[in-house]
């Protein structure tokens, strides 16, 4: 341990001070909140501007007290309403478009008569589309909202006219539906659709996404750290120190993991801030957290299993990263080779994030279950809604055994004889390929 400590210190210091590493770590915590903030601000201001200056023009063919009342209500709601200067629809539309109005409403002849006779009145809305931004959507939603408000006022008036003792709301919506969802042994007053939406967006997607980024980061860091040793010609010296190959490997694994976990924390913080920014958008104020507060907390053992599967998974992929880095003569080459490892991690992650593993074809299930990196994702996704997934309980000893084999094989690779010979062979193969290409 006394010899491992300075080696881990070397790894962590050298990595954290390397711009190739720290820029990658810092970018998410700066960029993600900025993106979330920018999206939120852009959406909000566009909507605010669109609704604030919402001007509509009106073609009133009826010209009665009822139609004028309709216009008054729309004005009271906050719309800037103006009558057209013409009776011709095409000309009125052209005028509205030229003057920058968002919509044209037509009140048909017989509007008042039909209303008083309890008939249904047809009101036409012509939306004038000048741009396709979110602000436009907000503007048209505001017009719909205003029309619905007027429609509610009308229906209440008409219902009261028929029978003043009746509550108009009861007639309009005779079924008062209150939705509950039962999760495990707890019933919560949240519609399942809302819960599903929140969970899908927040937990089932976000947590595996964070774990995926952590997995990719840790592999990248381990590979880069080892490739830098090759590139800077420091590995050879390191391998002559009076330390075991395991010490060197463990220092790499621990150093890379510490830095990657720090990166994972920064990424998670960035992601949460991104969501924070996004959920402050109008209509999305209820954050993921509010739903989680109503859910029963996952049992302690699920956290233990999650942590265990995460540690095994990090050790596994860090070892793969060290192998890639050790076989790479420089950082650029390790970057190219990383794809070989990242793709098999990425595909199962997507399957876990977007699908139900049990419904997948058997071959895909085997592919997902064969990788230790899948288990923390499965665990993180399932622990909130169900009891301990049985496949994770079987997966942990399997992953631990596979990881031990990979760590052992990696430490064997760090024998300089093998490493130098392998690097020599790889270099030779690349040179032969280059020569063959040149001859072609």
């Amino acid at each position, binding site marked *: 341990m*006394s010899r491992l400590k300075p080696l881990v210190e070397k790894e962590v210091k050298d990595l954290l001070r390397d711009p190739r590493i720290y820029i990658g770590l810092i970018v998410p915590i700066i960029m993600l909140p900025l993106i979330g903030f920018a999206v939120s601000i852009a959406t909000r201001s566009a909507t605010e501007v669109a609704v604030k200056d919402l001007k509509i023009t009106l073609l009133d063919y009826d010209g009665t007290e009822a139609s004028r009342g309709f216009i008054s209500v729309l004005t009271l709601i906050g719309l800037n309403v103006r009558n057209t200067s013409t009776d011709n629809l095409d000309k009125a539309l052209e005028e509205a478009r030229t003057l920058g109005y968002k919509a044209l409403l037509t009140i048909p002849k017989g509007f008042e008569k039909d209303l008083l006779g309890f008939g249904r009145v047809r009101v036409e809305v012509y939306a004038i589309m000048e741009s396709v931004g979110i602000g436009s959507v907000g503007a048209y939603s505001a017009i719909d909202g205003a029309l619905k408000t007027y429609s509610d006022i009308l229906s209440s008036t008409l219902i009261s006219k028929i029978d003043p003792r009746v509550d108009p709301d009861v007639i309009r919506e005779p079924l008062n539906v209150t939705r509950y969802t039962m999760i495990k042994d707890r019933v919560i007053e949240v519609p399942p659709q809302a819960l599903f939406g929140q969970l899908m967006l927040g937990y089932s997607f976000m947590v595996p996404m964070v774990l995926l980024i952590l997995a990719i980061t840790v592999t990248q860091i381990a590979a880069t750290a080892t490739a830098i040793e090759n590139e800077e010609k420091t590995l050879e010296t390191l391998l*002559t120190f009076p330390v075991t190959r395991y010490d060197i490997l463990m220092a790499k694994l621990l150093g890379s993991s510490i830095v990657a976990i720090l990166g994972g924390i920064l990424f998670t913080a960035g992601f949460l801030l991104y969501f924070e920014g996004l959920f402050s958008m109008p209509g999305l104020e209820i954050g993921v957290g509010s739903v989680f507060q109503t859910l029963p907390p996952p049992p302690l053992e699920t956290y233990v299993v999650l942590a265990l599967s995460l540690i095994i998974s990090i050790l596994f992929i860090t070892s793969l990263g060290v192998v890639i880095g050790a076989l790479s003569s420089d950082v650029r080459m390790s970057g190219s080779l990383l794809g070989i490892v990242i793709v098999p991690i990425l595909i199962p992650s997507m399957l876990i994030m977007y699908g139900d593993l049990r419904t997948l074809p058997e071959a895909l299930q085997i592919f997902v279950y064969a990788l230790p990196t899948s288990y923390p994702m499965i665990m993180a996704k399932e622990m909130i809604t169900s009891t301990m997934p049985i496949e994770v309980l079987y997966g942990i000893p399997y992953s631990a055994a596979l990881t031990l084999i990979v760590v052992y094989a990696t430490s064997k690779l760090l024998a300089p004889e093998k490493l130098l010979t392998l690097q020599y062979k790889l270099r030779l193969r690349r040179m032969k390929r280059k020569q063959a290409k040149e001859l072609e």
Partner: protein
Amino acid sequence: MPNGKVVEVRNLVKSFGEFAALDNISFRVDEDEIFGLIGPNGAGKTTTLRILATLLLPTSGYVRVLGYDVVRDADKVRPLISYLAEDAGTYRNLTGYEYLSIVARVYFGSGTDAESTVEEAVKISGLGDRINDKMKTYSKGMKRRIQVARALMTKPRLAILDEPTSGLDIFHAQHVRRLIKRHVEEGGVVILSSHNMLEVEHLCSRLAFIHRGRIMIEGEPQTIKDEYGVSNLEDAFMGVIGK
């Protein structure tokens, strides 16, 4: 240690596939010696030094360092040696002081031995205040000096130095040569490789000419020169390889 032999190499063969880097070489290095391996590029100098430093395995033959077999007892050999590779790099983002401190703690733990070792190494390097700068700001010569300091600060019984003065200007090359001599005066043994015949002539007590994986001649510099009737080692080397 048998008969004062620090290094004993017998019938050493090293092949990379079909290429024989070392073809049945034998030599020995004794106490208080600075032994030089001299030869052109690709002669097998670095391969020999890497085998002594436990980095490569012999294909066949027998190599012992201070009585330990470099293959079977590699873990016992490593604490007794230090190896300076020809193109040894540095950790760009560590300061010179941090690097020396980390290596000292690897060898001696975190006690006072490590601290005094680092202080000694700082003096050896001659980097002054620049020792606290990140090594990515160092010139090639400064990087070499920090590596020489690293290799000698642990007072290894055997220092294996591959082109120790490579990249150094005349002043710093002389400084390093003095350090190598001092290391031997303090009881250490040095085996080095070099292209610089003048350096070898003044530094080494014995040397071996190596060419195409074979040792052509081994002995004291003056004896070799006398044998070929020449005034310098360069001419002796050309005589040995028949040119």
